[in-house]
């Protein structure tokens, strides 16, 4: 109980950020796996249902990523600036791993949101671009391990 009480105090934002990172990693893993299975025609379900699930998982990933980054702004120990959490390799704390996470985060957000602009981008070009989501996800996993 005392651990939880301490957690609710000074470490609240840090724990929230880490938990959101875990949630983002799980949601993105599920979204990427589903996307790859759909792309490889390896799932014999209803395609519209699979697409809805894939989209919902991607949006959940983006929401979790935003919480993961923005919660850090409230952490009193690291007290990072907005630049530290948005520009890769600027943060003084664990520069390489944080930078890798920022690149992965931007990649997942931009490639995810680009779905809604695929008519403007061109469906074939968007499809090619969308494959890089797996790379961004791998960077995210490496960031998580680091």
């Amino acid at each position, binding site marked *: 109980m005392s651990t939880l009480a301490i957690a609710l105090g000074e470490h609240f934002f840090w724990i929230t950020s880490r938990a*959101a990172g875990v949630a983002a990693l799980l949601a993105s893993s599920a979204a990427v796996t589903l996307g790859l299975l759909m792309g490889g025609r390896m799932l014999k379900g209803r395609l519209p249902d699979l697409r809805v699930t894939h989209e*919902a998982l991607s949006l*959940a990933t983006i929401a979790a990523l935003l919480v993961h980054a923005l919660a850090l702004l409230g952490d009193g120990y690291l007290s990072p600036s907005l630049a530290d959490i948005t520009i890769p390799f600027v943060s003084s704390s664990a520069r390489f791993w944080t930078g890798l996470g920022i690149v992965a985060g931007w990649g997942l957000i931009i490639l995810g949101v680009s779905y809604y602009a695929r008519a403007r981008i061109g469906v074939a070009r968007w499809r090619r671009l969308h494959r890089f989501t797996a790379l961004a996800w791998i960077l995210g996993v490496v960031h998580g391990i680091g």
Partner: protein
Amino acid sequence: MPPSPPPADRAALGREKLAARAHRASSLRRRVVAGALASFALAWGVIAFNGPMGVTTDTTTTASTQAATSSTEDATTEDSTTDDSSAAEVTTAQL
């Protein structure tokens, strides 16, 4: 070949199918959101329980307890050369 339904029925059938698809989609979205929130809450609880920097709380406590014990033992050993009353004082002060 079965006879095709009249246009009015076909429209109603189409509307029903669309409604069923929308209902299914909304249910899937709700499930994904619930799963994401549950994983977030679970991760929050686990991290808070283990300590924010990983499983360090128990180790730190054990290490500090061991350090206190060993320093007490050292003090007692050092003071064993002197008379018993001063050894008792040091041990009590460190406790």
